[in-house]
């Protein structure tokens, strides 16, 4: 039976080539846009290099203080993370790192823009950076304030050129010489909490971060739980801590900060009253709706036209006793075959589009790829399209009166 439907579908597709082209064009381009979008989202928030222990980590990125005269919101100070967050019992490790900052270095009369970032020792134990050579700095080196640095592959190439090993060599940044002890694989700048060109021990900074008792500063923290089961407990403990600790000054009467999953912390706005997740989610939904509604309407239009064209066929089948259900089923199958064909072209097109986008290098080190999740989502979208654009025309067709259908020709 299905084989018959398939044959009929192919025959119909070949009969009106222009209509087939319009349908396939609409389906494949819509799918391409959706696939590229999902590939991008998947890479930006779904890629787990270098924080592979995401499922048992919570991220602390913002603190908002508000009072009568206004509010301030920012990343946190080293003191806050070390003193308060560091005293929590559930986390087994607490990685602390500053946001990346820019400086310059000049090699052979050429200027290099360098981003640097300060971290503690736990940071390297939570994050699983891939070291192409050397290793991370240890707690001992941090306590001694050794001028050592872990650099990215890009930095190695730009500063030292094409040489096999740079461990033990000195790199100058911000007018200070650091000894390179490790080289890690690049992180794209879209992972803004983890990205940097040079990673340094927080103790070598020209600013002494351990001084001062302000709550706001340049740092963010990652707490690692023993197991995934401990994560909710860790979150509760953090919230309990936030209720307990005193206000930074009399100016403020409320403080908000949360230990969040990676995705929530990624889109954190730093403002308690506007959730980043909601904003991003709404934006994506509106975009997807816009991109899909129009082609679907278009497909419905085309499908109705095509089906009405076949009214005599429908009339004959009805006259010989085919039920409405059978006919709707047949047309749905035909339509789904059509959408899958479009989907196939769409996958090929998105493959090309992603190659082109990658070759533009819009964002350094962000290499998009079609993975199986994306492909699965694509096929699901196709199926949904097929149903959506096939149901209404099929229903209208099945309502056709036998006599009128046969008389039409």
């Amino acid at each position: 039976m299905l084989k018959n439907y398939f044959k009929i579908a192919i025959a119909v597709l070949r009969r009106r080539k222009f209509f087939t082209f319009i349908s396939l064009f609409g389906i494949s381009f819509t799918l391409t846009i959706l696939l590229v979008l999902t590939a991008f989202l998947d890479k930006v928030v779904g890629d787990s290099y270098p924080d592979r222990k995401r499922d048992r980590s919570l991220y602390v990125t913002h603190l908002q203080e508000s009072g009568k005269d206004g509010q301030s919101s920012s990343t946190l100070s080293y003191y806050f993370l070390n003193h308060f967050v560091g005293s929590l019992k559930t986390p087994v490790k607490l990685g602390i790192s500053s946001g990346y900052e820019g400086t310059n270095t000049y090699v052979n009369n050429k200027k290099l823009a360098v981003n640097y970032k300060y971290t503690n020792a736990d940071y390297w134990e939570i994050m699983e950076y891939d070291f192409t050579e050397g290793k991370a700095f240890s707690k001992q080196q941090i306590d001694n304030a050794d001028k050592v640095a872990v650099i990215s592959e890009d930095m190695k190439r730009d500063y030292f050129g094409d040489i096999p090993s740079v461990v033990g060599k000195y790199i100058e940044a911000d007018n200070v010489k650091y000894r390179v002890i490790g080289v890690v694989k690049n992180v794209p700048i879209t992972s803004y909490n983890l990205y940097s060109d040079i990673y340094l021990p927080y103790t070598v900074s020209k600013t002494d971060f351990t001084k001062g008792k302000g709550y706001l500063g340049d740092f963010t923290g990652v707490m690692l739980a023993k197991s995934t089961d401990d994560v909710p407990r860790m979150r509760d403990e953090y919230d309990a801590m936030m209720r307990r600790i005193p206000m930074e000054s009399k100016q403020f009467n409320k403080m908000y900060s949360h230990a969040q999953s990676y995705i929530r912390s990624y889109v954190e706005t730093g403002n308690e009253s506007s959730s980043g997740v909601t904003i991003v989610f709404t934006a994506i939904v509106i975009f997807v709706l816009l991109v899909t509604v129009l082609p679907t309407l278009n497909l419905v239009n085309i499908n109705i036209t095509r089906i009405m064209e076949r009214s005599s066929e429908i009339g004959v089948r009805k006259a010989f006793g085919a039920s409405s259900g059978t006919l709707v089923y047949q047309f749905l199958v035909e339509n789904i075959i059509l959408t899958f064909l479009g989907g196939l072209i769409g996958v090929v097109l998105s493959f090309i589009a992603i190659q082109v986008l990658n070759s533009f290098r819009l964002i350094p080190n962000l290499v998009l790829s079609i993975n199986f999740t994306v492909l699965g989502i694509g096929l699901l979208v196709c199926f949904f399209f097929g149903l959506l654009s096939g149901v209404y025309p099929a229903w209208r067709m099945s309502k056709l009166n036998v006599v009128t259908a046969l008389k039409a020709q």
Partner: protein
Amino acid sequence: MFKHLFKLIWNKKKQNFLLMSEMLFSFLVLFAVFTLLVYYYDNYKKPMGFEYQNVWVISYNNAYQTKSTDSLNTYYEILRQNIKAMPEVRELSFCSFNTPFTNNMSQGRISYHKKPLDHVNFYTADESFPATMNMQILEGRWFNKTDVATKNKPIVINSDIKEQLFGKGAAVGQLISNYDEKEKMRVIGVVQSIKMKGDYAATGYGLYQKTDTGSLRWMGKIMVQVVPGASAAFEGHLYKTLANYMKNSNVEIEHLTNKRTSINYFTLVPMIVLSIVGGFLAINVALGLFGVLWYNINQRRGEIGLRRAVGASGGAVSSQLIYESMILATLSLIVGSFFAVQFPLLNVFDLSAGIYISAMLLAITFIYALVFLCSLYPGRQAAAIYPAVALHEE
């Protein structure tokens, strides 16, 4: 005649309803895309307001900690002299961290005669700022040595604030209150608004305050205008000088030309993506319309044949079909405009009404052109129908 056409449309209301909703959606999408494009274009054709070529931004932090204001002043005065003495440097200015083409902002509210004005950018800069940036002073003057702390702090506003608060009248000498209305500030000059966020962004309200010893403690930027063609070697030398002078500081030198490119890029990329998506949707709709209209004509061969037989010319037949689709477009555009006109009425995104209206006009023209082009060929095909052949089929 129109009455007759309406009747024809009404008779096929189910099919036409789908066509109309398709046109309606494409109108809304195009309206959104055009609003963005018109907004960017509108900003793009306004002048930059300053010269970014050959201007470098030096960032530093944590430079000099002292309780004594005298030694603080001396510290920065020596730094200024040192930089100024370099032959490649034309002019320099110490200013607050919200320099051009960064995402740093410092916004607040001011009020004039109890009328509040929000989203005002507060800049702090010293006497040589306009010279460094080549800014244009439209009215009054910039700060000079005589501006010491008086009861009413002297400020300079940009032309956007002037237009909003004083319209065509004179701004110099007027008093503006800050957010809590406790403090009054005296306007001493008006400068041309500058596009701080790149070529495609609006200028926004800007208010300049003069640096004082207090602000020297937290400021972290120096703008330097260099001679054209200053080399990387000189930049390295400048960098060393700064890093050696400010031992405890992290120093970074950036070029405004590069920063402009990268901030523009953040506006251009979404714009290009949206235009591609919008373009693709338009092509999609055009093909769909074309297909449906073409099919409809094949369906109505009998009717068209009859009209030709009783004496209608080919032109009359094809113009009837074009009129029909134009009426359909008009109906959906009326509904679409009803939604679109809410944006300027409710002032949804804080854009001027002119932008929305021109975007609406563009979208309407675009839809009409699209529908017209898509019905042109089917119309001509209908005109070519021979009555004898068409009627013979029945």
